[in-house]
């Protein structure tokens, strides 16, 4: 900005001195820059694009936040689109009380963090094994590991559902912890890849010297590599946590009819109960729209808070998978 004002000043002073040719060059430089990418036209274009994409990206979030404050009259009134006529916390109160929000939130955190933690531990161990040791069939196993990423859960869902019901794991968190602890949790392949890439980068001389001092392979892993891998551990845990928190497709199946429901599922259940009471098109149903949105905002809120505090970690993550090739 300061540079822009300075160059405008220069151009005007040149114009006053009637050095038109010089002023022309300066103007051209201002708009086109020395190599075009530093000119004003280019900059304007970039920021215009950024702002329009930013608007598109944030639009739904703005939409749910503003609409969740609306009263019944606001929803019906076609004139009110964005800003509710008054700040109305009734929707939020309903959700907080009816959903027993804080207890549900605790449940949801429990349901997400335990599997996420098990997935983090197991993928660290597995990633270390793949990265540091040579053994027969390593390549084949690694490819099989990557392949698990593209197998849709629909294929394995049914046999797993049978298996869990046979061993009475349905309706408990174990249905998520057991696959996670064995490296088959949600997007497990991705996490193993992150650790694999990380452990491969560390020079081997480090653990050779530890081995000379008499450390067992497992000690080398826990005392040397785990402390080094803390950033990767945090990333993997965060991602895993978010994915488990948001997971509804499988948890809707495995946890059906149990008391332990994740927050999104509980919200869905509550909405379904509520809407079935009222007939189609009635005003109470219209109001439910706003209540639903309030519920969604409250479901999303913990994740958003988590994200804003840790967004650097999320953004780092792709670098750590090493798919960009080292």
């Amino acid at each position, binding site marked *: 900005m300061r540079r822009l004002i300075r160059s405008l000043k220069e151009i005007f002073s040149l114009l006053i001195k009637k050095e038109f040719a010089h002023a022309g060059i300066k103007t051209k430089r201002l708009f086109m820059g020395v190599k075009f990418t530093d000119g004003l036209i*280019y900059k304007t274009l*970039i920021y215009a*694009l950024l702002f329009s*994409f*930013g608007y*598109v*990206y944030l*639009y*739904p979030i703005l*939409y749910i936040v503003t609409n969740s404050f609306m009263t019944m009259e606001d929803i019906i009134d076609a004139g009110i689109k964005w800003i509710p006529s008054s700040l109305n916390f009734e929707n939020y109160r309903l959700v907080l009380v009816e959903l027993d929000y804080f207890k549900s939130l605790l449940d949801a955190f429990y349901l997400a963090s335990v599997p996420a933690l098990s997935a983090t531990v197991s993928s660290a161990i*597995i990633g270390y*094994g793949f990265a*540091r*040791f040579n*053994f027969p069939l390593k390549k084949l*196993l690694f490819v099989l*590991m990557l392949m*698990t990423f*593209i*197998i*849709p859960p*629909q*294929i*394995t*869902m*049914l*046999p*797993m559902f049978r*298996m869990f019901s046979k061993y009475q794991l349905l309706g408990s968190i174990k249905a998520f912890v*057991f*696959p996670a*602890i*064995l*490296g*088959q949790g949600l997007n497990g392949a991705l996490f*193993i890849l992150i650790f694999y890439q990380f452990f491969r980068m560390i020079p081997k001389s480090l653990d050779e010297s530890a081995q000379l001092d008499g450390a*067992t392979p*497992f*000690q080398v*892993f*826990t*005392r040397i590599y785990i*402390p080094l891998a*803390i950033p990767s551990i945090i990333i993997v845990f965060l991602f895993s946590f*978010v994915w488990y*928190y948001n997971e509804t497709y499988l948890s809707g199946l495995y946890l059906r009819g149990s008391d332990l429901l994740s927050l*999104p599922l509980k919200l869905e259940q509550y909405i379904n109960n509520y809407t079935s009471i009222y007939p189609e098109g009635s005003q109470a149903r219209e109001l439910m*729209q706003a209540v639903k*949105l309030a519920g*969604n905002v409250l*479901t*999303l809120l913990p994740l*958003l808070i988590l*994200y804003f505090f840790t967004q650097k970690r*999320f953004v780092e*993550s*792709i670098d750590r998978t090493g*798919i*960009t*090739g080292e």
Partner: protein
Amino acid sequence: MVKAIGKIFAKIGFIWDKIKYALSHNFIFRSSSNYWTFFSFIKIKITNKRRQSIIGLSFIMIWIIGYLIFALYPIFYSLYLSFFKVKLDGANLNMTFLGIDNFKAAFLYDPYFVEILVGYIIEILINVPITIVFALIIALLINQDIKGKGIWRTIFFLPVIIISGPVIGELMRQGATTLPSIREYDLIRMVLNNINPGIAAPIQSLFDTILLVLWFAGIQILIFLAGLQKIDREIYEASMVDGAGPWASFWKITLPSIKPLISVAIIYTVVSMSVFSLNRVIIYIRNVMLGESTDALINGYGYSAAISWIYFIVMVLIILIFVGLMSIRKKART
């Protein structure tokens, strides 16, 4: 925190050592520095290479067990089920062999499945290139010399934490994922009204889903951004000295160097769109599995296993087509 985690692992390591001692000093199996002895008379010499592979395998072991139980077994079991008519008889499964009748029924008898599947294929074929292009554009934008890089990155990566969740379904139902303001422009409406409806309809639906498509681009943006940052700045400077503008250097430098990443991004996009919880095909598969249809022929475990296999094969084919297209263009150029 670092120390706390370290301490926890150190403690686990101590327990592990005890277990290991018990396992390696008993009458069945005894290990010394150079030999392993089984039952006191079978001796195996341990070379360094062997030891390495045994330690490695023991680290991988949890994955191998998990793979057998939670991946390989379910895959083959569902393939097996897909050839049967499965009836639930209490806790037992009552199975009748059908051969490939389930697969036939999916294509010839089921009134919904083919339609839903074709819709999915068209959607993927249109949306994946759009997602990739937008992800690339946004990654290029953020990679410029701009103010507030962190804020922009935060915004563009935000969808990743939302798209995997149920909130997105609510947004779709409420129409918040369509951008009303785009269609309110007179110019666009006029264009849409005046061209052939065969062309207008896809464009129309594109406007309706554009936001969702953009929201799928979060991880892909990061993939491209990581790739872009790895390109040496000197190459650009050298090309600029030789007179290449930003346009030329994009096609000649940027695109070739992130080309391998495009394939990765495509695979990721196809997979994430295919397992997206609001995808109509997977909702249909779950409904069939839970027995919500009344028609006995296209209901139950066997049939749902069959259609999920068809779905998986279609998905793999789509990935192969995209990746194949990428490699063909590469060959043509060199």
